[in-house]
């Protein structure tokens, strides 16, 4: 499946270890007056020992965004539009839920700010140099999901005021994770030319650096040992039930699953451990028990963002070992067509996109998720046997089947 670069033992309390990432963080202080910025400079120099430095918005690795003040909503939207996906700490007097940022409530405590910066530092370490959204578009990079530009929402149950009515999709609540109908955006990356090395590199990522690899390892451990397993991660714990098929997600703060999965995660921020046999799950309605496979599927979609695991063979056929349980997985556009093609006519990833006439990123996203749950395999060395399903190919029933399909899709989404 995702492969394992993690070390663990079966003893209770076994830790995972990972190489440290050393990096001087450039932090942009957004919406803060001169006095606050001076206080930050002293804080970075003394308590952070110059491991952080105040920087301009364009060159910063991390944002520190003050939500208080005039027109905060508009400023936030503008910030996110210019710096989609930038790790950001949001500070405010009022508690807010944030889908794509770490929240700290004023008055700031130095140790809380340091902990937040440390958390984001690890995520930044493995990402390319900071660039704005427009720079990313010009260079042909995929842009992050539209949800990243949403405005932080007010706490549940309160009336939104100066932040406006825009509500980002939040995945911090465990109940939302169980909603398999929530779509995961996979970006807008253009199709690649397999003959251009940079293109191929851009379309790949290293799954072992992302949280789904940790989660997958925990599931395998729970299945192998048939014991309770705890995964401690930034933002909360995940309890894996014996057997590895069901989990309970417990979120301690507002960091969303998407934020956790969308950037490489530092190994020293995650820990897998076996729990004793007498453990009993907390019966908390806000933390329901759910099936692990759809959660892993969703996590991989967040991490892959329309990319393939590094080293994936683009030219050998893909065989569908079994259909994913599509009614319970986060939907991916064209997934059913792709699965049906691989079930009947195994063909390569690039051929699939060409045959079906769909953007490669959907094929890649489906492959990444299906591969993570063990539903597909690459038939190395096998040649493709198609194309038997070209849209131009004659099929006397194709017309009526297409009309039925249209009607069914109308009924399903109507």
């Amino acid at each position, binding site marked *: 499946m995702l492969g394992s670069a993690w070390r663990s033992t079966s003893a209770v309390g076994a830790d995972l270890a990972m190489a440290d990432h050393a990096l001087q963080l450039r932090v942009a202080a957004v919406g803060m007056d001169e006095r606050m910025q001076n206080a930050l400079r002293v804080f970075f120099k003394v308590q952070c020992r110059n491991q952080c430095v105040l920087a301009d918005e364009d060159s910063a690795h991390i944002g520190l965004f003050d939500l208080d003040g005039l027109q905060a909503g508009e400023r936030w939207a503008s910030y996110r539009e210019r710096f989609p996906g930038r790790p950001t700490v949001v500070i405010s007097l009022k508690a807010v839920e944030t889908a794509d940022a770490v929240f700290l409530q004023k008055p700031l405590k130095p140790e809380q700010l340091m902990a937040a910066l440390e958390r984001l530092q690890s995520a930044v370490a493995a990402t390319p140099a900071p660039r704005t959204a427009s720079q990313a578009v010009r260079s042909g990079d995929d842009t992050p999901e539209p949800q990243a530009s949403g405005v932080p929402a007010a706490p549940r149950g309160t009336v939104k005021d100066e932040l406006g009515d825009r509500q980002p999709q939040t995945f911090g609540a465990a109940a939302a994770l169980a909603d398999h109908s929530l779509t995961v955006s996979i970006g807008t990356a253009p199709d690649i030319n397999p003959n251009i090395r940079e293109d191929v590199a851009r379309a790949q990522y290293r799954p072992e650096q992302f949280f789904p690899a940790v989660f997958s390892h925990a599931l395998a451990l729970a299945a192998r040992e048939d014991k309770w397993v705890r995964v401690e991660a930034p933002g909360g714990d995940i309890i894996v039930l014996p057997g590895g098929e069901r989990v309970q997600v417990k979120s301690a703060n507002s960091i969303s699953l998407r934020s956790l999965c969308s950037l490489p995660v530092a190994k020293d921020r995650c820990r897998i451990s076996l729990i004793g046999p007498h453990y009993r799950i907390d019966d908390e309605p806000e933390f329901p028990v759910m099936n692990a496979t759809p959660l892993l599927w969703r996590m991989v979609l967040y991490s892959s963002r329309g990319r393939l695991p590094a080293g994936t063979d683009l030219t050998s056929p893909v065989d569908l070992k*079994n259909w994913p349980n*599509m009614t319970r997985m986060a939907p991916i556009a064209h997934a059913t067509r792709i699965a049906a093609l691989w079930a009947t006519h195994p063909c390569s990833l690039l051929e699939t996109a060409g045959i079906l006439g769909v953007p490669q990123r959907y094929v890649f996203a489906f492959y990444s998720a299906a591969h993570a749950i063990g539903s597909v395999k690459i038939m190395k060395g096998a040649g493709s046997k198609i194309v038997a399903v070209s849209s131009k190919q004659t099929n006397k*029933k*194709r017309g009526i089947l297409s009309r*039925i399909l249209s009607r*069914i*899709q109308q009924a399903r989404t109507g």
Partner: protein
Amino acid sequence: MNNHKIIFTGPVGAGKTTAIASISDVPPVTTDELASDMTRNRKNATTVAMDYGLMNLGGGERLHLYGTPGQERFNFMWDILTESGIGLILLINNARPDPFADMRFFLDAFKHFIRNTQVAIGVTRMDQVSRPSIRDYHQQLAGLGFARCIPVFEVDARERKDVGLLVEALLYSLDPGLVA
């Protein structure tokens, strides 16, 4: 020919009537009678002839949805119902004592029809009984010698989006090149 049909089959209580109702454009016609014999303990009413639903495709074209009676003594109707059908939706009630036996039975009973068309399997009542799991169904199917991978989804027969996605998988299994 403007009339086409998809067959819904499966054991008693699998949700055939409910599934047809969830996607039918018209209230489905059901031929229910008070249950007799061993079916009585499962439900108060059971389909003894067939269920019928309809989807209008426009231009005078219709998709007919036929649900077979679940009791084996009505299997003489199965061949009649499948005549000229597009494909088969097999619903399996996960809460029955031996859902694998049910699946094997119906796949065997309809094997000629499936060979010429396709089948998609919906497993119902998994919210009540989670085992066997979908993975377990895959393992069972692997041993039954089907040349092609069969879609197996967890389905709530009351949910139009679940039933619709299952039918969609059936259609794409017939022709992955379809475009809506």
